């Protein structure tokens, strides 16, 4: 299973590169850094049914870092929510794949996101609904590291701990880079683990590209009672494409056809 998930993460990365070329805009860096996390979630952890996206008892996934829409769309397509060909129409007028996730338009998207900080807040609300209704579903939310500067993240963190939402798991895609540069140059977010611990969360730190570690972390989160869990996943922005790795310039610009070909070649060789 580990190999299958790793292969899926590679496939998702290829999809990301392919879909960004015709879109001519979008966010490769933070999509590539989260590919392993989404592959683990959608192909092992989440209780979901692509044939029934609105299944009331499904696990929820909220992409709080909504600009990483390409990694979510690629994952949903690979999981069978819609045909892979649709990915090539990302961001085009009239097409359902919006620049940022739209729950009204995209099957499998549980919350519309894009404005940072709001996804984790809504995810916590969903987790509260699960507690009220005594349902067993769990809610997962992927945060970006630059996103932690949003005050709402901490309002949500405080409330999730207050209401003991142990059915809520946040994952931090901690790649260290944001639009204007390194986290510590733009706005210091460290010490990240200590902040979440202080807010009353169960904190697990992993290598965000290590499938085995991610699986173990989700397992541990599911067994932890009384507190929400955050999995701090140390990642590399642009992971899998050598010329994109740790390059802040690839946060929000799409590759051209030539660059995409080079990226796909690397990814296929790794497969």
């Amino acid at each position, binding site marked *: 299973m580990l190999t299958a998930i790793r292969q899926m993460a590679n496939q998702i990365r290829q999809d990301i590169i392919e879909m960004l070329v015709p879109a001519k805009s979008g966010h490769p860096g933070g999509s590539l850094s989260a590919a392993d996390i989404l592959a683990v979630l959608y192909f092992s952890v989440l209780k979901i049914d692509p044939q029934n996206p609105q299944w*009331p008892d499904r696990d*929820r996934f909220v992409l709080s870092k909504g600009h990483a829409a390409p990694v979510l769309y690629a994952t949903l397509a690979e999981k069978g929510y819609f045909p892979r060909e649709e990915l090539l129409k990302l961001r085009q007028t009239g097409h359902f794949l919006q620049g940022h996730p*739209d*729950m*009204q338009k995209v099957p499998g998207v*549980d*919350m*519309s*996101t*894009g*404005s940072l*900080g*709001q996804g*984790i*807040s*809504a*995810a*916590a*609300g*969903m*987790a*509260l*609904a*699960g507690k*009220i*209704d005594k349902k067993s579903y769990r809610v997962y939310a992927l945060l970006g590291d630059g996103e932690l500067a949003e*005050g*709402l993240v901490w*309002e*949500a963190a*405080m*409330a999730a701990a*207050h*209401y003991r939402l142990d059915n809520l798991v946040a994952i931090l895609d901690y790649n260290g880079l944001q639009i204007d540069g390194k986290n510590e140059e733009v706005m210091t977010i460290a010490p990240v683990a200590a902040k979440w611990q202080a807010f009353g969360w169960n904190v697990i730190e992993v290598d965000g590209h290590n499938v085995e570690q991610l699986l173990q972390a989700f397992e541990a989160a599911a067994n932890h009672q009384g507190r929400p869990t955050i999995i701090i996943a140390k990642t590399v922005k642009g992971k899998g494409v050598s010329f994109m790795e740790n390059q802040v310039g690839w946060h929000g610009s799409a590759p051209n056809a030539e660059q995409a070909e080079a990226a796909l070649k690397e990814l296929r060789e790794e497969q």
Partner: protein
Amino acid sequence: MADYILTDQKKVATRDAYGKALVELGKEKPAIVVLDADLSQSTKTVNFAKAYPERFFNMGIAEQNLMGFAAGLAAAGKLPFASTFAVFATGRAFEQIRNSIAYPKLNVKIAATHAGLTVGEDGASHQAIEDLALMRALPNMTVLVPADAEETRQVVRAAAAHSGPVYIRLGRLAVPTLFSTEYTFTLGKANILREGTDVAIIANGLMVSEALKAAAELSSQQVGCTVVNCASLKPLDEETIISVAKTTGAVVTAEEHNIIGGLGSAVAEVLAEKYPVPLRRVGIKDTFGESGRPEELLIKYGLTAQDIVNAVQEVLKLK
């Protein structure tokens, strides 16, 4: 005069009527959950909290998260009512309402109290004069401004029955209960409270009561007024607005809100495009309020029956 208008008008704040209506609805609709941001004593959600403690959630002084949680609860099938003061609901949390509630069309009811100048002594920082402009400009948002306790009761029920985001504007001040239970609020419909052929006064919120007083005064001056209660600010009852403009040929609007962006603007937009007639807008004239007794502020900022009478006399000269 419509026969559902009471002669003995007991004063009740719309926030109190909201608190009662929630408890009543809570029994009928188990999906209802109520969220507040540390103001439950003032917004009157405390009534619901006492009746259904397991369905009440205090979010603390965190209005953005109040809206985010409400969005998530709605996305998971609950029917959340989120309450705080109108300034903080629509101002502090505007973008949460925009992106997490209105854009995904989630079934969240935002019931905001302490709207308008009649917050009184707390002053301008707490007096929302622009909330309707903010909410009206959001696609998918329904905006309701009840005039009294009975209409509030019906508005809350209509909001719960409607699928999609709703903003309900409520006040702190006790205002006359104008309507008996015979009155019927319908979402998207305005109510004609009295008919006359010289001028139409279109009002909502606590200015409906002032409009009726103004009409009585003008009647003694042989000026016949049609008075329209426009509680459904969005969707707006354009048909009724155009129809009363046709019968009277002159319109005055009255609202406890900035004349920019609220009822006056909404009526002006309809008339300018579809049936232009002389128009005057009674409202807050693009200025912040201040501390003071609510009744004194209404006089100082030009929100009384007399101000409506003056506006009618001006507009009649333009006919």
